[in-house]
């Protein structure tokens, strides 16, 4: 069983809130729920929509069919009507958007008390509950879906919430950020939750100021982190290189959006993989990790705090708009790695090649030694990161077909391969890349690549690091700013299976 609900409406009229209430109710009912969000770069008006996909089995992405379309305005109907089928239910003409929640709950035969409890968590309860009651009473149809057998899922959260939570649980003390979609959601989360943890969120005048202030905090011993999207990351890269020289621990959250330039500010993309790996002049070690869902985001960020502190390097958590803004549910408690701080106030650092008292030098022997130390650090780092899950194999483990992907495409790939004769190699650590990936790839007869970019950046990394070349015809690439839908991905994969 799989059901898709779209809540669409103008920015500012609450399609996002409505979707959140419905999603949380579905989770409480025991369904597996995935909810993504599409919005425009505007504050009021236009067309924003959330797609809720739920099932009695684990679900990690949206599919393209529409079962229920909730329209807060006429534009919503216009926008989605080509995707409607004869069974689609369209809800329109309500006074207030919360009454739609009542109608949806009734359609899905979910007890009203669940909706009541959800609404209690937010403001305007009195008005909202009245509206919800009206909607619940008004709706007379039933979808008669299969009821979930499992209980309420423990966690339902977005990628951004997960990044923020993971950072807090890893002992982060300072988060410096300048607003930029889609990284801003982490700043929101952290600012909202500041009173519950021992950290500070600081907004300074630019991304350059943010990362340099983070460096200032880090050299006194604080665990610091910055967050940004592509353009802001570009501004930070001079300091990223400086960190490589001065050896300072820093966690960088990089949320990708459609580029280059300002690109499509509110759409998704996986086109900053090379930027994350190669930005910054000179040669220095770094870690680049790309979680595929919120649970992995929590776990990987704690590993990043561990590795960056231990090796005094920069670690980049690579996310994207789709992961940052989508809500996922999961049951298992994420594993947090505890990390020790490696700096105490009193040390000296320099962006120059410098001697042991940190005075700048042009002594060839010292420069050579420092360069070699950085290479050695990369080797230790590769060994140490192998302690963690640097990649995962999902699906039919003995299949000759292997799909390769990274980051937020994980959800659609997992949903697409259910029942197919293939396995999925999900790369988590892009840098350093585990050499075990090479043997996994060489075992496979047929390698299929899935990426949300136009130049297949992961395949280039794999070619460089493992020598494995993926055939052009086996590359499934999407670069229209939107994430993969699982049903469309299934047919693309099937065409390429052997």
């Amino acid at each position: 069983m799989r059901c898709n609900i779209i809540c669409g409406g103008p920015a500012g009229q609450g399609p996002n809130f409505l979707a959140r209430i419905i999603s949380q109710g579905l989770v409480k009912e025991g369904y597996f729920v995935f909810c993504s969000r599409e919005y425009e770069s505007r504050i009021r008006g236009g067309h924003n929509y959330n797609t809720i996909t739920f099932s009695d089995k684990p679900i990690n992405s949206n599919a393209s069919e529409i079962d229920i379309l909730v329209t807060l305005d006429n534009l919503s109907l216009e926008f989605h009507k080509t995707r409607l089928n004869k069974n689609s239910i369209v809800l329109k003409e309500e006074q207030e958007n919360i009454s739609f929640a009542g109608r949806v709950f009734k359609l899905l035969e979910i007890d009203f008390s669940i909706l009541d409890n959800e609404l209690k968590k937010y403001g305007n309860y009195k008005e909202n509950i009245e509206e919800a009651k009206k909607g619940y009473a008004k709706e007379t149809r039933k979808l008669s879906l299969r009821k979930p057998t499992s209980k309420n899922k423990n966690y339902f959260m977005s990628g951004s919430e997960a990044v923020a939570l993971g950072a807090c649980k890893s002992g982060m003390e300072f988060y410096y950020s300048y607003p930029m979609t889609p990284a801003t959601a982490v700043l929101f989360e952290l600012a909202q939750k500041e009173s519950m943890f021992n950290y500070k969120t600081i907004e300074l005048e630019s991304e350059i100021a943010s990362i340099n202030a983070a460096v200032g905090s880090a050299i006194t011993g604080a665990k610091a982190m910055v967050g940004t999207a592509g353009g802001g990351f570009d501004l930070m890269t001079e300091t990223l290189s400086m960190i490589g020289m001065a050896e300072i621990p820093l966690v960088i959250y990089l949320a990708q959006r459609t580029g280059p330039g300002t690109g499509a500010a509110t759409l998704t993309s996986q086109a900053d993989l090379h930027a994350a790996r190669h930005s910054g002049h000179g040669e220095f070690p770094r870690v680049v990790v790309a979680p595929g869902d919120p649970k992995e985001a929590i776990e990987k960020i704690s590993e990043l705090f561990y590795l960056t502190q231990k090796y005094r390097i920069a670690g980049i958590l690579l996310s994207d708009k789709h992961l940052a803004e989508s809500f996922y549910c999961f049951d298992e408690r994420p594993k947090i790695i505890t990390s020790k701080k490696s700096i105490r106030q009193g040390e000296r650092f320099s962006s120059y090649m410098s001697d042991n008292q940190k005075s700048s030098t042009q002594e060839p022997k010292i420069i050579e030694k420092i360069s070699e130390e950085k290479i050695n650090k990369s080797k230790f780092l590769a060994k140490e990161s192998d302690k963690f899950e640097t990649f995962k194999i999902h699906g039919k483990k003995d299949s000759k077909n292997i799909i390769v992907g990274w980051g937020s495409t994980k959800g659609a790939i997992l949903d697409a391969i259910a029942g197919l004769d293939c396995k999925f190699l999900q790369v988590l650590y892009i840098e350093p890349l585990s050499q075990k990936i090479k043997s996994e790839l060489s075992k496979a007869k047929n390698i299929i690549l899935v990426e949300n970019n136009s130049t297949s950046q992961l395949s280039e990394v794999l070619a460089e690091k493992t020598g494995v070349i993926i055939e052009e015809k086996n590359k499934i690439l999407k670069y229209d700013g939107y994430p993969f839908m699982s049903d469309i991905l299934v047919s693309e994969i099937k065409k390429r299976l052997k």
Partner: protein
Amino acid sequence: MTGIRTNAIPSWCPGCFNFQILAGVQNFLDKQLKSGKKKQDFGIAAGIGCHAKIFDYLSLPGINTLHGRVLPTCIGMKLANPKLNILGFSGDGDAYSEGMEHLVHAARYNPDIKYIVHDNQVFALTLGEPTPTTEQGFVDKTNPSGVQVPPINPIKIMLGAGATFVARIFANAAQVQEILTEAFSHKGFAFIEILQPCLVFHSDKGYDSRFYNLQKSGHNKSSISAAFAKAEEFDYNSSSSKIPLGIFYQEKRKTFEEIKSKKAMKSKILEELWQK
């Protein structure tokens, strides 16, 4: 790190006024250490340029960071460890070109950090190009027709941006030591510009005979309009006007770290997830 000096041999030109600044800073710090402060109680940051070599000669904790980024680095240090005495060093290129964005905002935030700008009115280490405080008509290899645009007046910019301590001195060890003593007794952002002629690329324009001391002349440093009037007297272009030195302006205002150390407001929606 035992003494206040590292054993690095200074690479400034012989007779460079940076030696005066170093001596002033060193004398000030020696006194601080004698009165019970420890090296670990300090945090220093320097940018890139001739001024930044001072980092190599002072054996204090901190960082020789990038060109222009001294102030946010200092702010990060102060926020993470508000007990530290923070001293930032920049040149005029560092502070007024690449770092201008940070300078204006630092004045607005008012962190309790002391910021010294070694203003030699030229990019010296890159062999003599004009900076934002270089006078019109200045000729160098990159401007054979001479500088066409007028210089900025950093004192006016700092007054306008809300700096709570604005001073200008000459690169003389005694003046440096004295102004640092004043600045460290001020709780907030202290902007100290040091006019420091470059012996090779930008000699002084008869500065000695043009200086006078604001404090001795009865200037009211708590008046912003008096401060602006005094700042107007020297526009960094003129080769004849009087040049006031001393503290132009001083006021008391809440510091950035005081504001940021306040416990955050409790969010209205405390989700159960976060408490798990």
